[in-house]
């Protein structure tokens, strides 16, 4: 179906196609398809954009347009094995969120938005995570880290290091 398919696996195709009946247009599958690829590869390379476009009867530029609007998606290279969003919005900032972000980055030896050289972790500033009752907080993978302190941040980095040793 897709000529010269390089990135999208059978499994990814099946997962995208399983959602097709939910929407009256194929274009509506753009975000779900980008998520399917991103979940797996931690980025959406250009080849995948071309393949998604072919699958959805779109121009590659349309898919790329959507992808780039959402800064969420990585393209040129994958984000780290763990992607940590550290909230910097008001409720967290009032309780030391920005200090936690700086602390984490310093310990990991990177600047906010970067990935460690070993590819283990990406630390990104984030806007309100909707968990202001636990400020300052961080979402890493599917885990919400609540009421962060520098000590908790250190323990988190250690556990990431251990997991990916």
């Amino acid at each position, binding site marked *: 179906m897709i000529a010269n398919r390089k990135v999208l696996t059978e499994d990814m195709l099946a997962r995208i196609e399983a959602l097709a009946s*939910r*929407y*009256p*247009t194929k*274009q*509506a*599958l*753009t*975000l*779900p398809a*980008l*998520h399917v690829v991103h979940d797996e590869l931690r980025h959406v390379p250009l080849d995948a954009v071309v393949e998604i476009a072919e699958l*959805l009867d779109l121009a590659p530029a*349309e898919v790329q*347009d*959507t992808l780039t*609007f*959402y*800064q*969420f*998606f990585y393209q040129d290279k994958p984000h780290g094995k763990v992607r940590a*969003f550290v909230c*910097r*919005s*008001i*409720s967290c*900032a*009032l*309780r030391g969120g920005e200090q936690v972000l700086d602390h984490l980055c310093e310990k990991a030896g990177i600047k906010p*938005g970067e990935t460690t050289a070993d590819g283990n972790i990406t630390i990104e500033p*984030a*806007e*309100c*995570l*909707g*968990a*202001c*009752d*636990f*400020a300052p907080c961080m*979402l890493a993978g*599917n885990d*919400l880290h609540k009421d962060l302190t520098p000590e908790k941040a250190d323990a988190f980095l250690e556990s990431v290091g251990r997991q990916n040793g």
Partner: protein
Amino acid sequence: MITSDTFEPVLLEAAGIDDGHTIESYRSRGGYAPLEKLLSEKQPPEVVEMVKSSGLRGRGGAGFMTGLKWTFLPKDHPGPIYLCVNADESEPGTFNNRILMEDDPHQVLEGTIISAYATRASTAYIYLRYEYPKSWDILQKAIDEAYAAGFLGENIKGSGFSLDIYLHRGAAAYICGEETGLIESLEGKRAWPRIKPPFPAIEGVFRKPTVVNNIETMACVAQIARRGVDWFRSIGIPADPNNPRDPGSYGPKLYCLSGHVEKPGCYEAPLGITARELIDRFGGGVWKGRRAKAVIPGGISMGLMTEDELDTPLDFSGPGTVGCLGLGTAAVVVVDETVSIVDFLHNSCRFFAHESCGQCTPCREGTSWSLRMLERIRAGKGRLRDLDLLAEIGDTMGMMPGSTICGLADGAAWPIKNSIAKFRDEFEDYIKQTNPTGYMETDPVPALPIVTTH
């Protein structure tokens, strides 16, 4: 009227109950029985009438009358009609939708099914922000349970009404919460809000009539079906008889309390509780025994109240009486006396500069230049004149001055306007102290190296 003393939480009824998120728990508390009754006894227009007469106003931020919005749908439309449930919840300070989805997802689903029946929608999409993976799992499980129990799918409980509910995942962009940004995003495009009219009720997602409602609005619909219109209208602040345009503020409300309070959390109270009562009674007071300097009444977009204004009732019209934009999401953020107002405004401006979608020049430029000015002020190069420039930006971007497509710009403008109007002295002192030789400068100055907002 039920007062805040006699009020018992209903939207948060499941909080603290083990397995409150399961269908068994919800049914044991009386859930889904109202839906069954309504499907067999009421026609869709009667349900619209019920919601209209309850006085329910949307909980997503704008406070529009829910029943009235539903009547804007074309009559006798061949379909399909869509319902989009807005769970993008990204307004800083706000987390009530998350609590509702995680603690009592079936309440949200029952409200969604009733709302779809009323509006004759055959498909409902719940647009859920990416950052809520736990809500996603719980909601998806609840949807599966509802299908298995015959509350979703074909011919629900023999009524002839069919409905599918699908979860749709966002990608971390605040603007997807604006209803037409949400619609564009759902269609697979960049989330650029649409110029209105046409409003979504006439031409929404996939160019079909569409209703967009917030998660908490859905939960309120479920409670109105269960407890009745009179119950709903016995809570809150009645319409002002001297103002024919005031629809009142009825029903329970989830207030999110965060920032400098002892006990941050989501608390349910009758609409119209004051910020002071909320902070003292639920929040355990301002933290560390300090005084509040300022309080955000309903998400950062709504601006700021001063300590003197804390007795303002937090109903739909209260915050406006002290110069704030409105009730917004009822997310109350307390800022204590040790915080510099310059830092506060910097944080706000950075948020909006980051989240502006960039379509409208006043918003794209206004949000980014206000941030650059605050960066410069914080770097000790502020001038008194900057305060006038900031105020000018605040007065000229937004739907109120009529220069933008959506309300994000008004939300960016209000914290600027309120901060400068209410705390001008503090800004002036800061600028004079940090830039003693240049604060009177009025000539144009170069911006500092461009700050990255991402």
